[in-house]
């Protein structure tokens, strides 16, 4: 160790390099430690904007005219009391849209509508709204608020895991539409922090649109 110290002491460039390395490591550490916090803050700010948008008369009017919402715009509010989940879901599942925490698969029906309504949400970072979806059990309720009213789904089966392509044993994707059925599908990465699989929660509609949100 003394030899190393003597080596560093004798060379000015080595001392500068050591100082530089120390600074780089410090910056990297701050970045890694601060990134999840940053995403949470970012998601919180987006949710504030979405909540405001969700409550606006313009949004209600647009929704009622059945116009397709733009990717990143507010679409519905999802509430799952069991896991303290209450976030506004945006339209789209692009990385940018999902900074809001949860997004609606554009190819699937609008919330509460006939078919397979699918929503993806973060399990880590960006507010991690779906962090505990693996704790849901059959019978747990999921509520969706829309400008047309609210509907309630009941978890119909225990959460299950699929590969990232979402294919089930019958070859169909978990987000494929199912006309004639009223189904809600939630997807998220599994296990937490890994993209190797997806966890899927299936729920069926138990209470259709009622009242006005």
């Amino acid at each position, binding site marked *: 160790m003394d030899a190393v110290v003597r080596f560093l002491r004798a060379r000015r460039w080595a*001392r500068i390099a050591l100082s530089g390395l120390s600074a780089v490591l410090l910056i*990297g550490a701050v970045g890694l430690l601060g990134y999840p916090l940053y995403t949470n803050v970012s998601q919180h700010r987006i949710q504030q904007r979405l909540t405001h948008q969700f409550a606006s008369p313009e949004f209600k009017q647009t929704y009622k005219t059945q116009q397709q919402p733009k990717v990143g715009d507010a679409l519905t509010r999802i509430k799952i009391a069991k896991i303290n989940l209450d976030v506004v879901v945006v339209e789209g*599942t692009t990385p940018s849209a999902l900074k809001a925490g949860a997004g609606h698969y554009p190819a699937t029906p609008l919330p509460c509508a006939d078919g397979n309504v699918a929503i993806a949400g973060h399990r880590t970072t960006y507010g991690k709204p779906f962090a505990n979806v693996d704790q849901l059990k059959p019978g747990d309720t999921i509520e969706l608020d829309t400008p047309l009213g609210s509907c309630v789904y009941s978890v119909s089966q225990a959460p299950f895991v699929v590969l990232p392509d979402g294919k089930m044993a019958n070859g169909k994707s978990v987000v494929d539409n199912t006309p004639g059925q009223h189904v809600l599908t939630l997807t998220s990465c599994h296990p937490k922090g890994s993209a190797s699989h997806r966890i899927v929660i299936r729920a069926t509609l138990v209470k259709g649109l009622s009242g006005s949100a």
Partner: protein
Amino acid sequence: MNKVRRIAGLAVAGLLIAPFLAGPASADNPETFAGNAAGTALELNALGQDLTFGSSAAKVTSGLTAVADGAGQAAIPGTVTHSEVSGDNTAASQPQTCSNAALQNDQLNALLAIGLACSQTNVAVSGKNPIATGTASVASVGLSANTVLSQTPIGSTLQQVLAPITSAEPTHTLGSLIDSVFNSKTLEVTVGAATSAVSTAAGTVTSQATTAAAVIKILPTPSINGQPSTDPIITITVGQAAAKAVYDRASGQATPTVDPALVRININPLIAQGLGLPPETTVTVDQDVPVPGTAGTPLDSEVKVGHGTTTKNADGSITATADGVSIALLRGINGGITLNLAHAVASVGGTPAVVTAPVSVPQLPRTGESPLLPIAGAVLLGCAVLVRRATRRVHRVR
């Protein structure tokens, strides 16, 4: 302790990187090709019976199969060879096998004398490149119509019909010619080998069928003006014919080439001079030429030279065909004898290997970063503190 730290650092780095590494799916279509070649040296029709001599065939496929066949005389054991292999680094061959040809028809047996019929085959697959070669030949075909003619009513009728012609002809040349029909060997055919080969190299698949030159002598040892002649009355020389198809394994394109046989007809100089005929006539492709001086005689003969064709088949392969030479000989003698020579066909085709670009499987969206990020951050922070301490120590000592 330092070692433990290094291992821990590597482990953390690995955990951080792992979620971001995912191999894309890909799908490949392997290369397919097939090459065929077939050649026939001689097809003979006499007395209503078809006989095939010197036929060969070769075939290879991208399934690493190679097959070659040869037949000195079709369907006659002892003249037939066959070799076949399947799989890489395999080989098989049958050395030259010969036997005297056999004729089932007694009347034909009296008429024809067939020489030794031979064939050989060789196949191999080496370095995933299959090759196949088949060769077949018949030494000679001789026709002695004189014995048949003298014993049949046709012969006496022919003599009666021809008598006035021979007596009216002043130089007796034609008469000598007709006398030769009854008194000497009528026909001698020397046929070359038919070789069919398909070879595969790194960049190409080549199918090639070749038939060697053949010589047909009508009345090979005639008697003219009472003297034996060393020149046949008529000599028909059929040149080599070849059909070739080359397939480019990289582009998937195939190129055919055809080299049909040319035919040269030579007439005995004395006969040519006596009858005022050209001593040599060349027959090029797509021509139908009567042999000069034979019309109206028992030697009435005609030569038809086929052309070369190239065809693109429905499956995308191409075929090159040298249509061969058809010679109707001695039509004045019991219907005559028909020879089809120099028929060669080569075809090849395939599809190059297609390596499709990695297909990105539609995936459900990623919804989360690694929970190890804060741990990695803590490790980096620890390292930063250690390095900072070391830096301060170096500066303090100084």
